[in-house]
């Protein structure tokens, strides 16, 4: 035994002043970086009164942008839901050559800048591209039209569902599914009654993330959309267009719609996380 007197052992952050400083700093940063801009959006949108706000929302082009954005999300989400489940299933339940490569490839959309992704699609499917020129001959236009917007959005958001499911499905293993099969269940019965209930919260979480990104994607979409007002303008693009028109109130009005969608997403996401924890314990 040493005869050192045990000094007051303190963990980092045990001093009251340091703790206050750190907590204060965290709140300050969140306030300056997140809350103030969010309030500013709503303040700017409503600065000319509720009437002007309403006129801006019901503007023909704004309504079209809302419609197009919802259409893109409505097509992207189910597509990536099916794709994500399929992919996660494949890499967690089967051993095959190239499995690791496939798991790495899933992450490409996260690694590539969205603008580059958009450009890639433009070069491939644009009227001068390899595939695009062939499509032109058959009178099919993908770029500078809504199908192109859906395509890049699908590309950008395809990892979300799979990334949520893979770790969970790896951890759960396949023995419950094997048990279902040994008890005589068909493939579909096994999926619906055993696999799906086990992954449903993670799946919904992935869907929420996919939806949030699909609604808010700007970079890739702006490259392939062509910014045709009333035709290929999504909400994020519409915000930018109005801003460049010096229609500040209009731009911020559209921005409030996006912000509201984001807040809604946040609420749903928090709820799902809570449910996931509940079902895990």
């Amino acid at each position, binding site marked *: 035994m040493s005869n050192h007197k045990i000094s007051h052992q303190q963990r980092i952050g045990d001093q009251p002043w340091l703790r206050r400083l750190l907590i204060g700093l965290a709140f300050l940063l969140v306030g300056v970086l997140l809350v103030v801009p969010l309030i500013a959006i709503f303040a700017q949108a409503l600065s000319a009164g509720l009437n002007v706000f309403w006129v801006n929302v019901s503007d023909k082009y704004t309504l079209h942008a809302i419609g197009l954005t919802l259409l893109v999300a409505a097509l992207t989400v189910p597509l990536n839901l099916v794709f994500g489940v399929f992919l996660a299933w494949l890499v967690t339940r089967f051993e095959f050559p190239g499995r690791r490569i496939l798991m790495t490839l899933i992450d490409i959309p996260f690694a590539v800048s969205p603008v580059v992704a958009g450009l890639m699609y433009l070069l491939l499917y644009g009227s001068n591209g390899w595939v695009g020129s062939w499509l032109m001959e058959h009178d099919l236009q993908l770029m500078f039209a809504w199908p192109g917007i859906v395509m890049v959005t699908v590309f950008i958001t395809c990892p979300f569902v799979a990334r949520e499911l893979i770790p969970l499905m790896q951890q759960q293993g396949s*023995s*419950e599914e*094997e*048990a*279902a*099969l*040994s*008890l*005589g*269940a*068909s493939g579909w*019965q096994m999926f619906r*009654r*055993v696999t799906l*209930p*086990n992954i449903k919260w993670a799946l919904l979480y992935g869907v929420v993330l996919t939806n949030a990104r699909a609604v808010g994607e700007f970079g890739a979409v702006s490259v392939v959309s062509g910014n045709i007002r009333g035709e290929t303008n999504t909400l994020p693009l519409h915000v930018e267009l109005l801003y460049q028109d010096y229609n500040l109130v209009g731009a911020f009005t559209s921005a409030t719609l996006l912000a509201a969608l984001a807040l809604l997403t946040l609420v749903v996401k928090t709820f799902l996380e809570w449910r996931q924890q509940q*079902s895990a314990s």
Partner: protein
Amino acid sequence: MSIQIKQISKQFGDFQALKPLDLTINEGELVGLLGPSGSGKTTLLRIIAGLETADQGQILFSGKDVTNLHVRDRKVGFVFQHYALFRHMTVAENVAFGLDVLPKKQRPTKATIKQQVAELLDKVQLSHLASRYPAQLSGGQKQRIALARALAMQPRVLLLDEPFGALDAKVRKELRRWLRNLHDELGFTSVFVTHDQEEALEVSDRVVVMSQGQIEQEATPQDLYQQPASRFVYDFLGGVNVFEGEVSSLKSNRLEQGKAWVAFPDGYKAEAGQLYLRSHELSLSNQPSATAHLPLKIKAVSLIGAEVRVELEPLGWHSQDLWEVVISHSHYNHWQPQRGDTCFAQPQAGQLFTSNENQALAISWTKEQLLIKTA
């Protein structure tokens, strides 16, 4: 239902999990597949169930070829190592699953299913847990529910993968006995996988010992213990002491290592190799005898159980592991050995494995002593 396995083999990448092997399991038999991890026993069980497909070979159930039959159509009960209960279903829903997924035409009515589930839960003595979720059960309870779930299909073959591996010793013993009774009562054919030799010997009608994708020996527990067919089986069954030696240059019937030696009885020729001596096939005394000179130092004495276990360290010779000899309590009380004492081992029976042979030569010293006594 009998199970016939013909020339089944399986490869995972570069790893040969099963070398072509044959095995027949008779109707109503309870067979234990025993082996260390990586010996292929679980792979074989999964191939029988249809959860894994063999690269080659054939599987027949009661003479009918089921090699290409899907797991859902084989109608075998399978109990998984970690139970694999459906975590989002109650105990009753778990047990009912096999009946719920039957095609409409064969599916019993809701009331019948409910009644059958109640009967099964009664059989496994867990009726009071019907509305619980798997996470709320103990390991032993989960295992019994998993069994009830498999039995709901009234399978003629029950396959169990390390059924008691994850349970504590007391529950394991209880469940073993319970499984044996259930098997005898319902009369299905059972195959279970284990790495625990005691479990295999206690429960099975017949034990199949596997190693490196091959069957080392198939025998009744009694034959297996009395006549291990190979060095591997001997080692795997445990409780064995090894004396490795060369033939003495002085006396041709002596196996010698340093100062230690064992003289073979008349009629046996000594050959360089390893002499396997089980812990109960040796006796200990303060003096070397005319047939053996095996000095040992007492490292530990354990009095727990029906016999006294003495742990010994070779003195002046080598053995890979410590030696272990069991003596009777009365011998212990008479002798009173202390830790650190020196004593001598005297073999009564053993098996000699010469360097090139996998087959052992059985040697008995007691017979000779008997002869001397009667003479």
